[in-house]
């Protein structure tokens, strides 16, 4: 007896096909390339790609649509185009915009900017906010003296 497949979430299939993963990695390389100057990987880095692949969540359907659109613009496999042609397809994709590209970009960026190497390059500690929190200057509240001096601005009833 075959086991029934689990129902897909309301927001779409969370799994990318191998072809979609190839397209995604090629797109990411064009979007955020590695930089020796800033000592950061590109968004096509294997760890970041693995994070993207498991993070589609509520944008899953939009990501599938965006990658399908990328392939249509490429007239086949985007990953197999030479870099110059990929750049042209990316320019078209970005010029067209739309909510699917926004969703895809959102996921790529969220995974890229939470990568330890990228955070360290930005001077951030790669950790969650809790429990350490952050320190801020309390400031000098004498800065409010001109506001006090001006006096009441509320309206009498």
């Amino acid at each position: 007896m075959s086991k029934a497949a689990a129902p897909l979430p309301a927001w779409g299939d969370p799994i990318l096909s191998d072809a979609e993963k190839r397209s995604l990695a090629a797109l990411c390389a064009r979007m955020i390339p590695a930089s020796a100057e800033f000592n950061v990987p590109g968004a096509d880095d294997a760890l970041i790609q693995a994070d993207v692949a498991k993070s589609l969540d509520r944008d899953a359907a939009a990501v599938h649509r965006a990658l399908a659109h990328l392939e249509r613009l490429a007239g086949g496999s985007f990953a197999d185009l030479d870099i110059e042609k990929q750049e042209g397809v990316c320019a078209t994709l970005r010029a067209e915009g739309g909510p699917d590209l926004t969703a895809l970009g959102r996921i790529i960026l969220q995974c890229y900017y939470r990568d330890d190497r990228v955070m360290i390059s930005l001077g951030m500690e790669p950790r969650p906010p809790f429990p350490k929190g952050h320190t801020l200057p309390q400031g000098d509240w004498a800065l409010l003296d001109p506001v006090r001096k001006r006096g009441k601005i509320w309206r009498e009833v």
Partner: protein
Amino acid sequence: MPSNEPVDVLIIGSGASGAAVAWSLADTKMKILCLEQGDWQNPTDYPSNGRDWEARQFNDMATSPNRRQLWSDYPVNDDNSPIKVLNFNAVGGSTILYAAHYPRLHPSDFKVKSLDGVADDWPIDYHQLEPFFAENDRMTGVSGMAGDPAYPPQKTSPMEPLPMGRSGRMLGEAMNRLGWHWWPSDCAVTTREYEGRAPCINLGHCIAGCAQGAKASTDITYWPAAIRAGVELRTRARVREITIDNATGMANGVIYYDRDGVEQFQPAHVVVVAANGIGTPRLLLNSKSERFPNGLANSSGLVGKNLMFHPYASVWGYFNEETDGNRGPPLSLWSHEFYESDPSRGFVRGYSWQFGRGVGAIMEAQQSFASGRLPWGAEHHAVYRKLHNHRMNIAAICEDLPEEHNRVTLDPVLKDANGIPAPKIDYTLSENSNRMLDHAIARATEALREAGAWDIGVEKPIRNGGWHLLGTARMGSDPTRSVVNDWGRTHDVKNLFIVDGSIFTTSGGVNPTSTIQALALYIADQMKQRLATLFD
């Protein structure tokens, strides 16, 4: 199985107002039950505990119920509104998922008809609410600074303010040069140990639940005290309708779905609705009967009408100097410079500003990607480093005047998981709101430029800005022009009360939670004073 024994008071909703009214009524020793469709939140599950804290703002902790789609949520058809509805459904309601910016309405907000000839006066005033503002501040734990010249002197002193930070200093200096008002906000965030709660440690991510417990959500303020005083809070209980005794015309209980989806009847002598400005009219409109064919308490035809959101404009700037980014509570300073009416501005009433310190690394990348500021390719990294932690924001909260065509009705098709018809929103921005937004954007741009901004971004109105859900069961003395009287009882049903933001006659131009809770405490106090004659 719930017992469903009759109770004296049944409260629907455990958020800002439901929690306050439950706590206040508890000292009567009446049997009080609150039904809440969501469940308790565990602070160790809040996003700031994990590395995915920014990502979760778009998923299970999204502000839109349509995006979030948790089991506790109900869908809202807001396609016909430029401002989308935001909420959270849990013990604590939307106080779980708010910024804890905590201003009071101004005295003038209660008398806009008398002062400016628009909308309607409230049947109560600021001074009647003042003791309840103070009581609510004490229960909530509020930080800020006494002596704000934008308000009448207050009798309570808040805890010391949240840090000014770099962002606050930069904007404060600019506001001083312009001669404009600014002040540390009243914030429902503790800055020292308070009633068992720890002080703020600048997690920077207040909105999606405070892992530290410094932010005052009612699950950690009112509810522990109310439960200790004997109130029962029943979770995963979604109310479908309020039922009526056709002989007397009085409410006699509610039908709800329990945690297993089983329909239950809960009898009650008094029903208090605290389900927010969308959930409350939805419930009343779903409570049709032979005696109330147009929905409960709706003889005026105004249930669901006069929806007010507070249209927001967001104006942000980028600076050479480093700002606070997400390294502190996002909101802790305000300006009420343009709050009171000035006919020379071309609109009536006014707006407040809340200053935003900055945003997180991922939010900056995502928003700048979407706006086109952040390029693809080799330039990406250098540009990003000019944006990240170099932003400040001014958000204008505009008074939204009541208009009957802005409304909540029942969607003919859309239903929640229990098959209950969902709310449908029809809303348009008025010409007055448009002018006010434009004025706010121009002045905020001036302030940010004065502070040194080299680039400015604008969102008008903020699409995902429907935090404040007001006016859809308005308070008034005239039963033909209002839904509840001056102490929260519905004109039509003498044992049915409404205590949430839906009873606002007008909206003011500030975040409403403090006023919602003060109103709830005021109504509870009125009920207690009138117990012997409550149904007269």
